[in-house]
């Protein structure tokens, strides 16, 4: 940034003299000068803060996209392979949530009665039905890091499941005179934040109603504790505590973002049962809350198709994962999605234009129009293994052309391996599914229109006109939603018709953002209470906290750069035909963006990422070394498999957890091999059996022929050396 010391008229000539009393005019000039420098300084800090925020957000959303693409890939395998094929068998269970569908079977399945609480147990004991005292005791116990016995966990969950089933899809709530309702956004397993809210605002009760707007779990360490507390209060005050489903209340999402791991770590014996039951509970969570018929509260947002009357009638529990419609072939989704997109983008200049806008909006990318969009950024480009299915891909293309809402059912049916559902039901199912996915995954955007949310990979972006229309159609005045981290914990947009509330403070890093909750009386005017859970950051000045978050953002970015090092080097080499080992900064920036596709302002970031340049040139091999990320020391002959490993760390962990059907935390060699085969077909790369065997040999920690997933993932964790400097 250029704030060099240029020539300037010397405004303060007189100041050299030390004066006993400050003449007014001189004092004013001096004050002005300090003020201007100070504002300049604050502006530069704000620039840095924005940049940091972009880094975190880009990396976060790229992860969500990866997850959805992986899931779509499994959906594709499910839909296009014979029931007997091995790939299909490996993953089929993730789509078969309803195996045990009769409630009586379920009752038996999660029966807690056979589980004894041993005498040695020192944690809290619960009695049912739950009381206010009982839940308060539980809060205290969790505050002191105690763990609740699996028997009680299952008992609370069982009770919750029974209660949720009689709740409607949309909670209608009214605020009495002299009463206020409290609305909280994403908590993401950050128990400290929930405690802080309770401390400042009081525990839920009939005098103190609460709405919790989804994303209770994942990312933080105490997702289960949060759920148990919220469910506890729900059981005691079913009319005063309202829970909306978020996009993370989804067992498929939990595989990647830590909740599955948390449960299995805390409950080695009964974790599997708890997970199964939670899967069921999540599908029964209500989808929306409406206050006094005027304020709509949903986790993500709306789309131009949102219709509360349709949502009110949906069988919500059918959508065990909101990522996929129930029992529909993938062509159908793609076909209609493409259609919808084309139709909606009529005035926005087609889908390409729409996508460009979306990108520039979220990523503030410098030249969005010129950016490449390789397949990995697009949801609509299904990652399909060419070795498995090139002919299917052709078939798919042909069908997409034919497809649309009027797609012939016969044809759809033929390709649909789960063809046990009624064809007529499919279209309704899909429409219903879209209604739900839009509520859970969408984000508002500043410009008019409604376009697919390609940055996240699910839901849509809705403009102020959509807000206006949907609110008016339902005679509502305000939409409250969560789903996006905001620096102040809340933010208005769409002419104050849309309010985002986010309750997980320090979400990206200590000091990155405040959390907030809303209090609203019968006048329906929202009041905000902001907080920050960590004690350390309160003393940090603006500059220090920006410095702190910035370092951690850069760390995350360096890791991302590091895992792509081989791709980066080959991209750099293209700009270096003579093999000098040097490329210009401009080429460095464009090659980096081409590979990472994070839409970041590399030009601005280069001063923080590139330590040394010679005449404006970067020594790129040296630069990669200087990222100072160390790999674990493993003796693996095939370097390319390590590369794939780092790049697809989260994808691989997700596949492991899917394949580990019995949630034992370990998988056999054969399953390990299958995981890699799945990954390689997802990535369309070839990974040899020898390489896999070699890898398996080197990390078989317990030498019994099975592999512990946690240990395996841990062995491949990158370490940033600069973190401690």
């Amino acid at each position, binding site marked *: 940034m250029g704030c060099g010391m240029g020539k300037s008229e010397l405004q303060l000539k007189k100041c050299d003299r030390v004066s006993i009393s400050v003449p007014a005019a001189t004092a004013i000039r001096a004050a002005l000068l300090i003020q201007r420098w100070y504002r300049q300084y604050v502006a530069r800090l704000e620039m840095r803060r924005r940049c940091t925020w972009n880094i975190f957000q880009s990396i976060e959303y790229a992860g969500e996209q990866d997850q959805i693409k992986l899931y779509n890939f499994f959906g594709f395998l499910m839909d296009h392979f014979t029931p007997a094929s091995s790939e299909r068998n490996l993953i089929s269970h993730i789509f078969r949530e309803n195996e045990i569908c009769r409630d009586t079977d379920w009752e038996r399945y999660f029966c807690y009665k056979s589980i004894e609480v041993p005498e040695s147990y020192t944690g809290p004991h619960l009695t049912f039905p739950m009381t206010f005292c009982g839940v308060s005791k539980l809060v205290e116990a969790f505050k002191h890091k105690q763990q609740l016995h699996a028997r009680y966990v299952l008992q609370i969950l069982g009770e919750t499941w029974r209660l949720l089933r009689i709740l409607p899809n949309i909670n209608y709530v009214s605020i009495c005179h002299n009463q206020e309702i409290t609305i909280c956004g994403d908590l993401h397993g950050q128990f400290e934040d929930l405690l802080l809210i309770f401390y400042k605002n009081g525990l839920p009760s009939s005098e103190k109603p609460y709405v919790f707007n989804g994303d209770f779990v994942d990312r933080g360490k105490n997702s289960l504790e949060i759920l148990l507390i919220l469910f506890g209060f729900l059981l005691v005050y079913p009319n005063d505590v309202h829970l909306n489903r978020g996009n993370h209340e989804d067992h498929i999402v939990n595989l990647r973002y830590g909740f599955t791991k948390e449960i299995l770590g805390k409950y080695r014996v009964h974790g599997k049962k708890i997970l199964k039951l939670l899967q069921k509970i999540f599908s029964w969570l209500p989808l929306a809350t409406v206050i006094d018929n005027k304020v709509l509260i949903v986790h993500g947002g709306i789309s131009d198709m949102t219709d509360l009357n349709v949502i009110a009638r949906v069988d919500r529990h059918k959508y065990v994962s909101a990522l996929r419609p129930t029992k529909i072939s993938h062509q159908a989704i793609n076909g209609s999605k493409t259609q919808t997109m084309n139709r909606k983008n009529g005035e926005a200049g087609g889908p390409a234009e729409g996508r460009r806008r979306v990108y520039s909006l979220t990523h503030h990318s410098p030249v969005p129009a010129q950016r490449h969009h390789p397949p990995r950024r697009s949801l609509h480009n299904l990652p399909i293994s060419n070795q498995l299915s090139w002919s299917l891909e052709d078939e798919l293309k042909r069908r997409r052309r034919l497809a649309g809402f009027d797609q012939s059912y016969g044809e759809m049916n033929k390709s649909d391996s789960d063809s046990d559902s009624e064809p007529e039901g499919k279209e309704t199912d899909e429409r219903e599914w879209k209604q739900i996915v839009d509520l859970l995954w969408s984000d508002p955007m500043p410009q008019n229109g409604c376009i697919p949310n390609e940055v996240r990979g699910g839901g849509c972006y809705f403009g102020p006109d959509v807000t206006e229309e949907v609110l008016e159609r339902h005679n509502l005045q305000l939409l409250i939603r969560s789903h996006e981290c905001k620096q102040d914990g809340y933010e208005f947009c769409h002419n104050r018709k849309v309010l985002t509330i986010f309750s997980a403070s320090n979400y990206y890093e200590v000091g990155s953002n405040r959390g907030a909750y809303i209090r609203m009386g019968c006048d329906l005017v929202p009041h905000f209470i902001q907080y920050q859970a960590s004690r350390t950051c309160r003393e940090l000045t603006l500059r220090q906290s920006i410095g702190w978050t910035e370092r951690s953002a850069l760390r995350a970015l360096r890791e991302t750069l590091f895992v792509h090092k081989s791709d980066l080097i080959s991209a750099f080499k293209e700009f270096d035909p003579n093999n000098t080992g040097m490329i210009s900064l401009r080429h460095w920036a464009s090659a980096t963006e081409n590979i990472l596709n994070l839409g970041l302002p590399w030009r*601005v970031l280069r001063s923080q990422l590139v330590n040394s340049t010679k005449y404006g040139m970067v020594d790129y091999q040296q630069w990669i070394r200087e990222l100072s990320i160390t790999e674990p020391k493993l003796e693996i002959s095939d370097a390319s498999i390590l590369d794939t490993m780092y790049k697809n760390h989260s994808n691989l962990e997700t596949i492991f957890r899917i394949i580990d059907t019995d949630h034992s935390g370990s998988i056999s060699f054969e399953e390990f091999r299958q995981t890699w085969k799945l990954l390689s077909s997802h990535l369309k790369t070839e990974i040899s059996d020898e390489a896999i065997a070699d890898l398996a040999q080197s990390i078989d920690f317990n030498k019994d022929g099975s592999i512990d997933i946690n240990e395996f993932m841990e062995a491949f964790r990158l370490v940033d050396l600069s973190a401690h400097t």
Partner: protein
Amino acid sequence: MVESNNQSAENTMSEVHKRIKAAFERFKLSPNTVDVREIGTIMYSLGCFPSQADLHDFIAEVEEDHSGFIHLDRFLPAMTKVLLEHKFPPIPKEHLFQAFEVLDKDSKGYLEPEELTKYMTQEGEPFSQEEMDEMLTAFSDQETNVIYYKDIVSQLTIDPGN
């Protein structure tokens, strides 16, 4: 930034455009607009030192019908002109030190928070309460609570990008 002297005027121009666009990008709401309240931050971050009056004049020049939004099409040429003509040149950092010395009438080497607050909120282009609080939190000595301005000068003037 490495800039050789033999660069053509055209090159400088495109360099300036790039810098402006990069700063603008960071604050934009939709493809090519930013909130009018961000203009000051953008100008400052580009190394300009406009007064509040300068800022208002500049905004009046680029804002469309008091919409509250500034479009890149109008911002870019106006800002380019500002940068190329050095309209609001940086104030040398020596002057910043001198300014503090002026306010430190007893030459103590530091300012009491009350002193600084008085000058910053009552003179010149007064700080808001929020700005003042933030400045004091950031710059007062943790033990003595006074402001050793010598240290501040280096903090205020260091380019955080490097």
